[in-house]
């Protein structure tokens, strides 16, 4: 068989779109499997130059057209999309479980820190959205003045957001009486910044620190209220 050392464009059948190409087709070229190197997945028609010595001794430069077989093209694309979205979903879940997540704040128990009265409540779009970091849950380095998200002790399906005003060992003066309550070990006292409209430890008592699900660090929405949440020590919370 005679060959001229020119460039031939040959249509090929791919077994594995990564590596091997079977060079075949008309023009009388030698047809055998040639390992030509990696083809980048996203290039639909790469041109790879791979010198191949034919039995006749001629160097044949082949410009390869990457062509998927008809029964292999669409499913592998769909499979790739599925794999990517699965991986993204997993990464998103892990990040929101263990590192940080964004939650909307509903209600006015933490005015004016969140949802101040002067902003019109229009539902989900004007609720404050805050960044809750969960890295603190590893070592529980909570302190006075942290704003935390915790599961409600009376209704375990709800989550509340309040500020810690007393830690274990502190004394709290119970409102409307002369008693003072010592916060037991492993518990904390939470209060909302807006005492008139807040269901907090003054109603359900100190909560175990194990109920806390995260610490609020920043407001992320609406844009005019973006900022860091400071640790504010309350004025009249500690009795002694």
């Amino acid at each position: 068989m005679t060959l001229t050392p020119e460039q031939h464009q040959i249509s090929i059948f791919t077994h594995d779109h990564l590596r091997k190409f079977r060079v075949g087709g008309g023009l009388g070229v030698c047809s055998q499997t040639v390992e030509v190197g990696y083809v980048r997945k996203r290039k639909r028609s790469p041109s790879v130059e791979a010198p191949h010595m034919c039995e006749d001794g001629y160097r044949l430069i082949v410009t390869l057209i990457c062509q998927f077989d008809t029964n292999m093209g669409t499913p592998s694309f769909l499979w790739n999309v599925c794999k990517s979205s699965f991986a993204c979903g997993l990464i998103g879940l892990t990040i929101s479980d263990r590192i940080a997540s964004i939650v909307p704040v509903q209600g006015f128990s933490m005015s004016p820190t969140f949802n101040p009265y002067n902003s019109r409540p229009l539902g989900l779009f004007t609720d404050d959205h805050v960044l809750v970091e969960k890295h603190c849950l590893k070592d529980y380095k909570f302190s006075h003045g942290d704003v935390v998200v915790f599961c409600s002790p009376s209704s375990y399906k709800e989550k509340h957001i309040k500020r810690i005003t007393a830690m274990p060992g502190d004394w709290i003066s119970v409102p409307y009486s002369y008693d003072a309550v010592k916060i037991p070990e492993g518990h904390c006292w939470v209060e909302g910044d807006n005492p008139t409209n807040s269901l907090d430890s003054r109603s359900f008592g100190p909560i175990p620190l194990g109920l806390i699900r995260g610490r609020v660090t920043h407001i992320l929405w609406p844009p005019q209220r973006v900022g860091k949440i400071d640790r504010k020590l309350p004025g009249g919370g500690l009795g002694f």
Partner: protein
Amino acid sequence: MGTKNIIWNVCKKYLTIGLVGITLTDRYAGVCPIRGSSMSPTFNPSLGSFTDDYVFLEKFCLDKYKFSHGDVVIFSSPTNYKERCVKRIVAMEGDYISNVNGASKVPEGHCWVEGDNSASSFDSRSFGPIPLGLIHGRVTHVIWPPQRMRKVDRRIREDGLAF
């Protein structure tokens, strides 16, 4: 360039497996060793055994909290949030518990837990009812050592409920 691709593929595979494992143990099921003898003879029946019991705990119950009397649960200790305890739920919210001060009602959203080995168990008789939000999972099977592999049943005790 081939080596970099191989390394990247291996990394991706291990990262995916790791993420799947983390997500599964956080949200669906996990394995936990049991220490101490507060749940004898259900777990760790003999003090001198070489290995602690390992149990399989499922977290599907956390979605809707379908707990009931007799479930063995793992929860964060209310006195020391860094520790986890395993005990059995003896009473749910609304039930009455008899203790030394008379009968007290378990408040809403809480449950009363006690160990099977009443003599050496630090449980609700010391720290009171615990909020259901502290529970991390429900124990369903003992999976180690092999001779003690079995399902952990719901056992309802006769004493403990006053009314």
